[in-house]
């Protein structure tokens, strides 16, 4: 009976060890990624982007006119982006944004829950 219990404990220990390693592995496994949003034909493409916290988004202006990327409440904004120029930002939370020159150009960043 005693031997059985210790075997059972041993198995439990092993199982929890495997589970824990799995959890740690998962957490450290998410290397920050880079995403590209093209600004093309007066649209942010893709207009909705799902990222993980800490990922980087790079905006590239492929239009012939200048644009910018401005958070909807103006808490952050890119400088003026001339044609072919880029701007990047590390994303910490979900945000909606627009171009303050062309106010009907809108986009959204959604930070996926882990």
């Amino acid at each position, binding site marked *: 009976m005693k031997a059985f219990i210790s075997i059972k404990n041993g198995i439990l220990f092993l199982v929890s060890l495997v589970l824990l390693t799995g959890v740690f592995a998962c957490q450290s496994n998410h290397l920050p990624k880079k995403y590209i949003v093209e600004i093309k*034909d*007066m*649209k942010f493409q893709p207009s909705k982007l799902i990222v993980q916290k800490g990922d980087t988004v790079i905006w590239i202006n492929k*239009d*012939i*006119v*200048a644009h910018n990327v401005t958070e909807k409440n103006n808490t952050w904004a890119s400088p003026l982006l001339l044609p072919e120029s880029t701007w990047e930002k590390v994303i910490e939370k979900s945000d909606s944004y627009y171009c303050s*020159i*062309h*106010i*009907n*150009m809108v986009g959204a960043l959604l930070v996926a829950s882990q």
Partner: protein
Amino acid sequence: MKNFQNVKKVTLLAGAFLCSVTLLSPAFGQNTPTLSDPEIASVAVVANQNDIDFAEIAKQKSQNPEVLEFANTMIKDHKTVIDLAVALVTKFHVTPKDNAVSKKLLSDAEKTKKMLNSKSAKEFDKAYVDNEVAYHKAVIAAVKNVLVPQSQNAELKALLQKVVPILEAHLAHAEMTQKKML
């Protein structure tokens, strides 16, 4: 023979007059005018410059921040398009050429500027934004149906094609501003 020539002249004149009325009323009517690349370049520059001129009047007469922001966007974007068109004609050693369409656009714009300048401060914003909606609709149709299909030079065609979504964004912006003012 002399009589015949006179008749011919009169017919030609009448024809030209009818053409200018039916073809260009508004500047780009249902009947499609035929334009060469230098003429298309001239139309493009005039169409963009007109909208800059309207925006300059708005900057002097409007107090509405949304109207002023819209006007600033018009100045920036239409200036960019003119610069690119000028760079293109310079590259290809083409001189923009006046034509019936660009002349009609210019004379219509003179009337619009008079109308805008005559408005009281209270009436101005609506008159300006209403005109921007109508003007962008007309120019979009002209670029899509006349200027793009008729341009021969591939770079000129590509530039005009890139201008369409810009004009469409301006139209949406103008319509949004129009709704807010109701």
